[in-house]
């Protein structure tokens, strides 16, 4: 396989991995620290796309659209946490699964009511629509580079916040000892609300950035959510470092699998196998480390 093509796939894999990372951070924090399962995380991804599309239509500006869409997702996440998620902390996993399932059904139908059943498209902003020359003979879409860069920046910012600030320390402590944090006089529900909103915004951001690459449609969040869950299982619930490594692993493996396996095994078997690669990886990790690569002590 030509090196330029391999490189392009490698970049695609990293880009896909970074998108998964944005989603996985939310999941690993919400599942790991708050011990809440939230199936509607994929809905935030979907709504990010829809909101961006709508705000661009109203403001005719990509930048304004992004800002307003992020705001909208943030407000929605806070509202959801306050009204539905917070009472569910006490209820246990089954009720959380069912209630957030109800949210998924609702949001999937809502976008159909508001925007119709047909898939919609977001245009890549003109200043990012070109190609970037990587080296001799290899060009890569500027947009994909840009969103990967944004995700990396977000990752760095997250690392700085978690590792270097008081808030980050509280979040890490919340993962280990909820009681300790409460003893410190900090209102744990504030922290939880923040974490939930952060997770939602990151998911929405991933959705906004991926929107122009996919078709925006009802139910687009769920397949991504399942992949995100696989990432978190491999990385370990509660570990952001695990989420990053697992996300890159999954992103690259999945991308290469889809390209290489049909070549090696033919389209029929190859396609079927490429659908299985990340799950086989997950099964392998589970056999070796049932709690993932970097399990947090809280789990």
């Amino acid at each position, binding site marked *: 396989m030509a090196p330029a093509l391999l490189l392009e796939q490698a970049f695609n894999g990293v880009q896909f991995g970074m998108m998964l990372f944005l989603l996985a951070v939310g999941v690993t924090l919400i599942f790991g620290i708050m011990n809440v399962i939230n199936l509607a995380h994929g809905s935030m991804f979907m709504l990010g796309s829809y909101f961006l599309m709508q705000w661009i239509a109203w403001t005719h500006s990509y930048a304004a659209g992004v800002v307003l869409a992020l705001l909208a997702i943030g407000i929605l996440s806070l509202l959801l946490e306050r009204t539905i998620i917070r009472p569910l902390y006490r209820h246990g996993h089954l009720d959380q699964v069912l209630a957030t*399932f109800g949210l998924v059904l609702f949001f999937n*139908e809502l976008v159909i009511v508001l925007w119709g059943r047909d898939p919609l498209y977001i245009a890549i902003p003109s200043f990012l629509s070109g190609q970037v020359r990587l080296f001799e003979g290899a060009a890569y879409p500027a947009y994909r580079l840009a969103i990967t860069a944004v995700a990396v920046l977000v990752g760095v910012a997250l690392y700085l916040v978690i590792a270097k600030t008081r808030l980050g320390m509280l979040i890490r402590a919340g993962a280990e000892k909820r009681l300790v944090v409460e003893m410190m006089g900090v209102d744990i529900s504030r922290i939880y609300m923040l974490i939930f909103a952060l997770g939602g915004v990151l998911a929405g951001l991933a959705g906004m950035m991926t929107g122009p690459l996919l078709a925006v449609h009802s139910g687009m969040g769920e397949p991504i959510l*399942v992949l995100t869950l696989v990432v978190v299982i491999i990385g370990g619930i509660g570990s952001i470092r695990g989420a990053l490594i697992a996300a890159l692993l999954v992103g690259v493996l999945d991308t290469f699998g889809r390209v290489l396996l049909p070549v090696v095994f033919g389209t029929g078997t190859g396609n*079927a196998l490429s659908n299985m690669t990340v799950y086989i990886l997950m099964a392998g990790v*589970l056999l070796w480390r049932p709690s993932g690569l970097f399990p947090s002590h809280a789990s």
Partner: protein
Amino acid sequence: MIPATGRFWILAALLLIGVLVPLTGDTFYIKFATRIMIYGMAAVAIDILLGYAGLISLGHAAFFGIGAYAVGMLTNAGVVSAFLCWPLAVAAALLAALVIGALSLRTTGLYFIMITLAFAQMVYYVAQSLRAYGGDDGFSLVSRNTFAGLIDISGPVAFYYVVLVLLVAVVVFATRAMNAEFGVVLRASRDNSDRLEAVGVPPYPYRLAAFVISGAIAGLAGALLANLNQYVAPQGMLSWQVSAELLVMVIFGAAGTIIGPIIGAAIYLFFAEILSEITQHWMLLFGPLLIVRVMLIKDGVYAMILRAVDR
């Protein structure tokens, strides 16, 4: 001797209704009732795990779908006899449940839920990629399965009774098993897994057995659904929504009762039918309804009925 308690009379009434439904003569109702029974069977499978072993599986659509696909593939390949197809479909689902269960049950809590979901999605994607079987669109069965000329299930009434008999068999088995030593160990493992170990009983083998039995029953239900619709496709059988819907049915009815889930399936399907008459966007109503039910109402319908009758 069977005690003449409230529960007995409710069961008797349900069985009577079950036997009499085909006499209405309306093919639509008969098929609808058959659907209820098939989903009810799958819901019973979930209840064994949820209501007794305390395990939340978000991946049972996999076994449901494997049962359906097995029947579809075999039938279209010429193996039309139910005596061959159905046991093979159950065996396929059972095997899948063994593999997935053995891996998933090494974990607990959130991990378990997520892993079962992930494996089911894998099966879904594999089915989608099967070009020879219609990929995402699925495929039709050339005919329903046959019983070597003994019973002809190509018509709605005969098929209805076959499903009824199988459902009753499943219910009898499940009820007895959950009251037997196996069920006691399952419930004990849900109540206090550490204590169970500390009295000398390892929980893992029993949970795995429950998972496998549950998967096999779901596979049987899938085989029956394939026959009912004479059609098999990933979306309606293998999607994660199906797994979640089964959980909803169990909760609507009352977990841990075996009968409750069947009532829950009826309620769910009735709701879906009625609401979808009102508007095609009925999920807009159903989603919030589900949220309200989960957050505000504690008991399933069957539990409420039992309480009312016992008074």
